[in-house]
C-alpha cells in the first residue's frame, strides 16, 4: 500500500508543467543505477530535452551490499531551456535501499519527492545504513513527499513467468523503476525495449524478463491509486536542426583524438596504464584499430608515456592518458619530450588528490602540476575541456598544437566530464581545418651539417623520422647545441636553448583565439573567471545574477598555458575578479602572477561539483 502524499496532486490526466526537473537514482552498487540513469538519459534526449548528468559512484567495485559507502547514484537535470549543470538539488530521489536514502536525502530539495522500495527497508538493511528506526515510518521525512511501496515484490511478480532465480529476478528491479520513471515523464518505451533486446540478444529470456519489468513499472504508474504519482510535462528544449547523440566526456575526447590525428595525417599511438577515471579512454580507443589507432597497455605510467614518446620519435602521434597520480609518475618523461621537442598529447582526467585521494570524485587540482610540475624550466601547452561534448574539440586542438609546435600538450579534463553525458550535435568533420604534418626529408647541402634542431618561424624544430636515408642523427635528454643538435653544455648555449623553448611555447598565444567573454561584456563590475568543468554552474550563476540586474560577466579560459594574448588587458577592465575553482586557488594564483590583478578565489574541494547557488552567493558577495 502506497503512503499518501503530503500535498494534493493534480487530478488524473493532468501533468505538472516544469521548465526543468532534477532526478537522482540512488541504490546499491549492484542495483544497476548507472545503467538506469544512462537509459533514462537517452530517453530524455530522445524526448528533445536538454540535459546534463552526474554519475556518482564509489571507488569500490562491489562494496558490501546495503552499506552507505556502497551507494551508487546517478543524477540527471533536464529541461526545456539550456541545461548546463546536473542541477543543484534533486526534485525527485529514487532510493532503492535505506543506505541510498541516508546518503542522498540531504541533497533533495525541501518538499521534493522520495520514491522508496520498502522491500529493502528491512531490519538488516536499516541497521547497515545506521538507522535505528525506519525513516519511512517515524515521521522524519515530513518535509518531503514520500511514495514508499514494495518495488522488490512488484518486480518479482512481474517476472514470475520467466522462471528466473531469486537473484536474477530481483536484478530486474532497476528496469521496473525505470518503467515507472518513463510513465511519470510520459516517455516512449520502445527505444528501451530495443536496447534490452540488443543487450540480451544471447539470452532472450533475460531480455523478456527485463522488458516485462519495464512494462510492469510503467503500468503501475498508470493504474496506481489516483493521485499516487505526479506526472510531469517538460517541453522540448531549443535545438539546432541536425543529428544528435548523447556522449560522455571520455567518448568525445577519444573521438577527438582520433579525428585530431587524422587531421594531422598521422597514425595515433596511445600508450596508457589503467587508472580511474581515465581508463575509459583506453577502453574506447582499443576498439578503433581500423582508424589507424594502436593502443598499448603499458606495464606502468612511465612506460605508457615513454612508449608514446618512442612512437612520436618514429613518426606517429604519441598520446598518453592518466589521472593526477599517474601524471606525477610521467613527469621525468615529460621533460624528455620537452627537451627532444617531440609532439605528444597527455590527457589528465583529474580526480581528488593528493596521493590516491578520491579516485572516483572530481577535482581541478592538477593545474599547477600541468603548468609547473616538472624539473627545470620545462614549459608545455595546457588546454582544458569544459564539458563532455567540448572534450571533442579540445582534443583536436591539443593534437593541432602538439604537431605544429613539436611539443607536449597537456589536455585537462576531470572525473565529472569523463563520466557525465550530454546531448551532442554531431559535427561535420569535413568542416575542420586539416593540419597535415610534413616530415623533414631533404638532405642538407654538401658541406653543411644536418641540424635536427633547426627551427621554423614558429621555433618548432624539424621532425625527421628514423628510416629516412641520409638524415641519421641522435637526440636525447642532454642539452643540445642550438646550431648542430650535438651535446652542448656550454653556458651561453643552455641559456639560448632555455629561452628558445620558452619563446616557442609563449608564441602559441599568437596561434590561439583571443579570450572572449561568454556572458556579459568587458568593463562590467565583476568578472567570474573559470576553466574546465565548472563552466556549467558558473554560466548559470552569472546568467541568473545578470537577470537580476547585476553587472557581472563570465569568462571561461580554455587555453591555460600559454594564456590568450588579450587576457590581461581584458581582466583589467573589471573592478573585481572572482575565480571559482575545485581546488584551493590555482588559476587564481596564475592570473595574479601573470597580470598583477586582484583575482579572488572561490574554492570547493568536496569531491562534488559546484552548485549554481554557491556561485550565485559568491557573486552577490563580491558585488556587495
Amino acid at each position, binding site marked *: 500500500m502506497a503512503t499518501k502524499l503530503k500535498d494534493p496532486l493534480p487530478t488524473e490526466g493532468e501533468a505538472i508543467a516544469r521548465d526543468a526537473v532534477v532526478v537522482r537514482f540512488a541504490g546499491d552498487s549492484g542495483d544497476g543505477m548507472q545503467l538506469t540513469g544512462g537509459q533514462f538519459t537517452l530517453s530524455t534526449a530522445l524526448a528533445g530535452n536538454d540535459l546534463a548528468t552526474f554519475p556518482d559512484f564509489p571507488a569500490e567495485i562491489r562494496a558490501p551490499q546495503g552499506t552507505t559507502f556502497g551507494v551508487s547514484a546517478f543524477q540527471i537535470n533536464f529541461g526545456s531551456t539550456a541545461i548546463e549543470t546536473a542541477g543543484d538539488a534533486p526534485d525527485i530521489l529514487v532510493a532503492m535501499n535505506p543506505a541510498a536514502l541516508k546518503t542522498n536525502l540531504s541533497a533533495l530539495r525541501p518538499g521534493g519527492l522520495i520514491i522508496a522500495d520498502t522491500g529493502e527497508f528491512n531490519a538488516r538493511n536499516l541497521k547497515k545504513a545506521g538507522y535505528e528506526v525506519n525513516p519511512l515510518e517515524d515521521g522524519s521525512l515530513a518535509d518531503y513527499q514520500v511514495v514508499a511501496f514494495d518495488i522488490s515484490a512488484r518486480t518479482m511478480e512481474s517476472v514470475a513467468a520467466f522462471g528466473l532465480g531469486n537473484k536474477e529476478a530481483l536484478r530486474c528491479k532497476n528496469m521496473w523503476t525505470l518503467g515507472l520513471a518513463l510513465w511519470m515523464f510520459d516517455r516512449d518505451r520502445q527505444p528501451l525495449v530495443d536496447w534490452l533486446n540488443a543487450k540480451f540478444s544471447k539470452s532472450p529470456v533475460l531480455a523478456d524478463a527485463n522488458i516485462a519489468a519495464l512494462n510492469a513499472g510503467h503500468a503501475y504508474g498508470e493504474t496506481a491509486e489516483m493521485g499516487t504519482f505526479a506526472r510531469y510535462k517538460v517541453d522540448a528544449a531549443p535545438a539546432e536542426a541536425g*543529428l*544528435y547523440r548523447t556522449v560522455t566526456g571520455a567518448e568525445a575526447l577519444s573521438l577527438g583524438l582520433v579525428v585530431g590525428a587524422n587531421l594531422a595525417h598521422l*597514425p595515433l599511438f596511445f600508450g596508457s596504464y589503467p587508472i580511474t577515471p581515465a581508463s575509459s579512454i583506453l577502453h574506447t580507443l582499443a576498439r578503433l584499430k581500423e582508424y589507424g589507432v594502436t593502443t*598499448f597497455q603499458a606495464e606502468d605510467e612511465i612506460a605508457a608515456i*615513454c612508449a608514446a614518446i618512442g612512437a612520436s620519435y618514429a613518426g606517429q602521434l*604519441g598520446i598518453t592518458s592518466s589521472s593526477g597520480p599517474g601524471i606525477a609518475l610521467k613527469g621525468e*618523461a615529460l621533460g624528455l619530450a620537452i627537451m627532444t621537442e617531440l609532439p605528444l598529447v597527455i590527457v589528465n582526467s583529474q580526480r581528488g588528490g593528493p596521493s590516491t585521494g578520491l579516485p572516483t570524485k572530481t577535482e581541478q587540482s592538477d593545474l599547477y602540476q600541468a603548468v609547473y610540475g616538472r624539473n627545470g624550466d620545462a614549459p608545455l601547452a595546457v588546454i582544458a575541456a569544459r564539458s563532455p561534448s567540448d572534450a571533442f574539440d579540445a582534443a583536436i586542438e591539443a593534437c593541432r598544437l602538439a604537431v605544429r609546435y613539436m611539443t607536449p600538450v597537456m589536455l585537462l579534463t576531470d572525473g565529472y566530464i569523463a563520466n557525465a553525458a550530454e546531448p551532442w550535435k554531431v559535427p561535420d568533420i569535413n568542416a575542420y581545418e586539416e593540419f597535415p604534418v610534413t616530415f623533414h626529408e631533404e638532405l642538407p647541402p654538401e658541406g653543411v651539417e644536418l641540424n635536427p634542431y633547426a627551427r621554423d618561424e614558429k621555433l618548432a624544430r624539424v621532425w625527421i623520422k628514423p*628510416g*629516412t636515408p*641520409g638524415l641519421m642523427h641522435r637526440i636525447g635528454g642532454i642539452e643540445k647545441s642550438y646550431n648542430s643538435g650535438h651535446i652542448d653544455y656550454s653556458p651561453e648555449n643552455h641559456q639560448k636553448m632555455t629561452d628558445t623553448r620558452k619563446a616557442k611555447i609563449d608564441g602559441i598565444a599568437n596561434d590561439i583565439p583571443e579570450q572572449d567573454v561568454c556572458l556579459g561584456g568587458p568593463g562590467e563590475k565583476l568578472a567570474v573567471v573559470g576553466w574546465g568543468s565548472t563552466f556549467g554552474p558558473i554560466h548559470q550563476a552569472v546568467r541568473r545574477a545578470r537577470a537580476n540586474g547585476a553587472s557581472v560577466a563570465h569568462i571561461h579560459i580554455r587555453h591555460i598555458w600559454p594564456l590568450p594574448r588579450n587576457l590581461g588587458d581584458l581582466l583589467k577592465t573589471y573592478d573585481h575578479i572572482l575565480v571559482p575553482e575545485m581546488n584551493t586557488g590555482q588559476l587564481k594564483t596564475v592570473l595574479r602572477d601573470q597580470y598583477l590583478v586582484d583575482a579572488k578565489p572561490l574554492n570547493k574541494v568536496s569531491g562534488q561539483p559546484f552548485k549554481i547557488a554557491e556561485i550565485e552567493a559568491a557573486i552577490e558577495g563580491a558585488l556587495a
Partner: protein
Amino acid sequence: MNVVTPLKAADFATDQEVRWCPGCGDYAILKGVQRTMAELGARPENTVFVSGIGCSSRFPYYMATYGFHTIHGRAPAIATGVKLANPELDVWLVTGDGDGLSIGGNHMLHLLRRNLDCQVLLFNNEIYGLTKGQYSPTSRVGTRTPTSPFGSVDRPASPCAFAIGAGARFIARCIDTSQKEMPGILKRAHAHKGTSFVELYQNCIVYNDAVFEPFTAKANAAENQLWLEHDKPMLFAGGTKGLTLNRQELRLEVVEVVDGNWEAAGVIVHDETNKGVAQMLVDMPFPGFPIALGVIFCSPAPSYESALVEQTKSLTQGKIADLSALIRKGQTWEVTEKRD
C-alpha cells in the same frame, strides 16, 4: 643503377668525440658492434639505437645511425613505442646493470615477456660508473664503494637468470674484449625474431677494475670460459674438462675429459632450445664452474609487434575507416527543424 658500396665498420662511427674513460671496456664493445653492423650489411637509416642513462647509454652518440638517448631505465619502453610505430626499424637497446636491472628492471621484465623484436645489449660492469662508483644490483656481496664503505650486504641479481625468468627467448653472454666471438653472437641476436638479451661483461677501469679478471685474464680464460655452441659438447680448458648432467640430482657437474673422449666422460651436448639446462648454465657458481658464454638459449616465439600487426590486420580487413560514421555511432536522433 645505383652501385651500393658495402659499408665498413668505420662508416658506422660518428664524428663525435668518444667521452668514455681511457681503457673503458665500452670502447671494445663499440668496436665490436660497429664491426657487426658492417658484417650484417645494416642500413644506417633503418637502424635505431635506444639507450637509457649511464656510461653505456652514451653509446648511441657514437653510432652513425638513428639514436635516442632517453632517461634512466626507460629505454625498453621507448624502444617499444618506436618498434610498434614502425616495425620495419631495426631496434637495438644499450643499457647497463644499473639502468637495465635497477631503475629499469620492471621495463626490462615486460620487454622480455612481450618479446618485442629488438636486441638488448646489457653492459654489466657490476658498478655504477657515471654516478662515481656506488655498488649496483649486480655487485657481489662485500663490494666496498662510497655507499657501502663496509661492504655491500645485499645479494646480487644475475642478468641472464633474470632474463630467463622474465620469459626471454634468446639469451647470450660475451666479454667486452672477446672481439673474435662478439660479432658472431650479435649477428645471432640480430637474426633472432623477438627480444634478444645479450649480457656483456664490461670492465670499468676506474671504479671496478679487474672484477672479471678471474675468468677474463689471458691466463684464466681457457680454464674458466665455456663457449657454448649448439650441437657441440660443453667443453672447456682446451677440451680437458666438460659439463655433465647429474640426472639423479638434476644439476650440472664438471668432469675431466681424458684424451678428448668427451662422450666417455658423459659431457652433454649443448641444445640451445633447452630452457632447463639454460637455467642451470646461467646459474653456475663461479669459481667451481666455468662462465657460460655464447648463445645460451634460443627458442623463438612470435614477436610482440608481429602479433599486434597480425591482429590489427585480421580485425581491420574489409573495414572502412569512415570517421563521419564513427562519430555518428550509438543511439542518435534527428532534430529535423530548428526549435526555438
